[in-house]
């Protein structure tokens, strides 16, 4: 099942429900094992947290552990924190979690 990310990163507010913003290329990305359609050229921890935990809108995303792989040349894999963003490519996978359990 795919989720469609309808948020325009340039505007920062969601468009009307059900609409798909076409200002950026739409790509399929995988977040925590689940496919999503994402419109945008790059993505950061906040966007990913919204996709991974949609029910947590508005909560602090501080200290979430975010890792990615399968990215474009030059940003193929790595870790992200804070406001850092990474360019997105088709099929790229992301792991987003609060690594606090032991």
């Amino acid at each position, binding site marked *: 099942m795919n989720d469609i990310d309808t948020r325009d990163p340039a505007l920062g507010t969601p468009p009307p429900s059900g609409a798909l913003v076409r200002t950026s290329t739409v790509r399929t990305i995988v977040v*925590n094992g689940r496919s999503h359609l994402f419109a945008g050229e790059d993505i950061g921890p906040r966007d990913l947290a919204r996709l991974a935990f949609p029910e947590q809108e508005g909560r602090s995303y501080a200290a979430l552990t975010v890792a990615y792989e399968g990215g474009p040349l030059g940003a193929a894999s790595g870790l992200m924190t804070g406001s850092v963003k990474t360019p997105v490519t088709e099929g790229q996978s992301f792991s987003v979690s609060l690594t606090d*359990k*032991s």
Partner: protein
Amino acid sequence: MSRSPTSPDPQLRRLLDEGYDATLVGGMLVVRHVPYVAPGGGDVRLGTLAVIAYISGNVLVRPHGHMAWWVGQPPCDADGHPLKHLIAGAESRQIMPGVQADLQLCNKPKGREFHDHHEYVTTYVAIISAHAQRLDPLATARVGAPASQVCTSSPFRYADTATARAGTGAAAERIAGQTVGIVGLGGTGSYVLDLVAKCPVYAIHLFDADRFEQHNAFRCPGAFAIENLRAPIAKVELLTQVYSRLHRRVVPHPMRIDATTVPMLDLLDFVFVCVDDGAARPPILEHLASRGIPYVDVGMGLSMSDDGVVGAVRTTLGTPATHDSLSSRIPSTGDPAGLYASNVQIAELNALNAALAVLAWKRMFGFYATGRDFDHGIFVVETGAMHREGRVDRKEQA
């Protein structure tokens, strides 16, 4: 009748009774004052011979190897020519704390291994000393034994023969003698204990206020009896009972470490922080950093997807120098209601997290070589990828 833990092994006793200066230390059987001819001829000196102590149940058993190690110059014949048939080559294995071997020796009885350690040792000594006795008929390795032949300074209740066999004693010395703490003895913390208890640290202090419950038995190393689950007992008390069979100084503290109790950690050399609550971390980690105590903080975030468990396992090594730069990598606000993920934990991922934590600790102290600066590692379950980051990476991101 069982032998007293402090009385010498029968084979060691026989060597001592015959006057050899023999010692069992660190999984090696060491014989000092072995006369040999030094290169060049005419000069009789004293060397030290060591063989692996093949031990089972704290008793020397039939050896299934025949190599030996030598501290000294190459042993020679009476003319000063090295005993080429005996010398296998140079090897710097540590045979006992602070003592490195110079050479590896090889001698094997025809068609078999040695019957016992007495034959093992005395054969080598005879081969080496015979040449010295041609120059000095009074030269002998049977000099009379010193008062103490069993090393009692070991933190273990029985000899660590694994380290001796692997020849990693010199590396183990780099973590030896430390006083280590484990805060939180859940799944990951109990696996950390399982690994650290097999290291030559001086003492291991355990901190956890919780009782051992049935679900803990499925996230801890080993197999607990149903009786262990029926009697109410603190996790740290039960784990101390188990691991004190191996390590002499496992110290239980059935208490929670928080802002008021964190000074309990002040005398530790290193701390493994294996707590479940993000909010519990800052007072512990900030206190450790302020006291100059390095730590590893571990944690995992797992959840169920349609295709199975997904998530990440985090291992973060902090020092006073890196603590501030790591604060954004370590959860600190907590997720008490489990809003981001359920409390999914899997024993093998607890074990992996613990192994990575112990690796980070040992790497910091030079047990493991390291060719790259990294102190923050993330294992992603669904892809199998291992991501890592160090101070240089963080500076580049800043």
